[in-house]
């Protein structure tokens, strides 16, 4: 039942891609995303959740997808993941999570989100310490984003 709590996040991710980037996106449940995929070339953004749910949602964006997102929004070229790029990506994650939380409130689940935290690539990520119980993948034409949700019961 709790896996359903991930749906508002993946739905919001799809909507945000469509609206902000004109990119079609499709979510799929993904078992074992955590251990299997290569994290070395991804940017991780974590957003804390408080309220009726307590935990964290983690978004993993491939580096080239990240650059493409920022290029599309700014109309400028970007060749490396710098402070501008991570900040733009953090705001994307913030928008997605904000929309997901609005969606959850319609299911009578009232939560707040914390400011985005950029965890860099897989080497800095905390996924080793934290177990993300619910994982999904959002497939888009500019790359696949992983969405992981970890909740305290």
């Amino acid at each position, binding site marked *: 039942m709790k896996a359903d709590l991930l749906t508002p996040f993946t739905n919001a991710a799809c909507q945000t891609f469509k609206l902000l980037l004109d990119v079609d996106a499709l979510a799929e449940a993904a078992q074992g995303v955590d251990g299997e995929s290569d994290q070395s070339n991804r940017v991780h953004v974590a957003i804390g959740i408080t309220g009726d749910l307590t935990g964290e949602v983690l978004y993993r964006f491939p580096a080239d997808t990240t650059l493409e997102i920022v290029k599309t929004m700014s109309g400028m070229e970007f060749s490396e993941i710098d*402070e*501008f790029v991570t*900040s733009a990506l953090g*705001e994307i994650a913030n*928008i997605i999570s904000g929309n997901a939380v609005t969606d959850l409130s319609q299911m009578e689940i009232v939560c707040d989100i914390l400011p985005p935290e950029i965890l860099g690539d897989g080497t800095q990520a905390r996924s080793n310490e934290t177990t993300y119980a619910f994982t999904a993948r959002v497939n888009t034409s500019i790359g696949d984003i992983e969405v992981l949700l970890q909740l305290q019961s």
Partner: protein
Amino acid sequence: MIWKEKYKIGVPLIDAQHEELFARVTNFVETLRSDKEWDEKVNSVNDTLGFMKDYVVTHFRDEEAYQEEIGYPGLEEHRKTHQDMVSYVGSISEQYEQNGFKEITMQQFAGKLVTWLVNHVVADDQKIADYANQEGK
């Protein structure tokens, strides 16, 4: 930033202001991202930043006045979104002045600003247009 037809909400004043706001943000971001050393560009970054900030205030005020005029029910929420952005810009500017105009502060600010603005125009401001159309205003 690239202005798109789909960003229009169908109110000439607001559409023109959005386009102008995009132009000023673009000017600021292009100056910030130009290939020069920070020392060489910091003054023009600060000028374009000021020019952009002034316009944000004007535009938010006019857009809120329009919402009031048509009796938009989401006005209070929208006003809060504007106010949150204005206070974020205020606190970043303060931090930037206090740290002696550090480049990293502006790079972080600009990345968030670009994303916020695109989302605000396509999501929040479009809702004003939806209401106006629905009410035949």
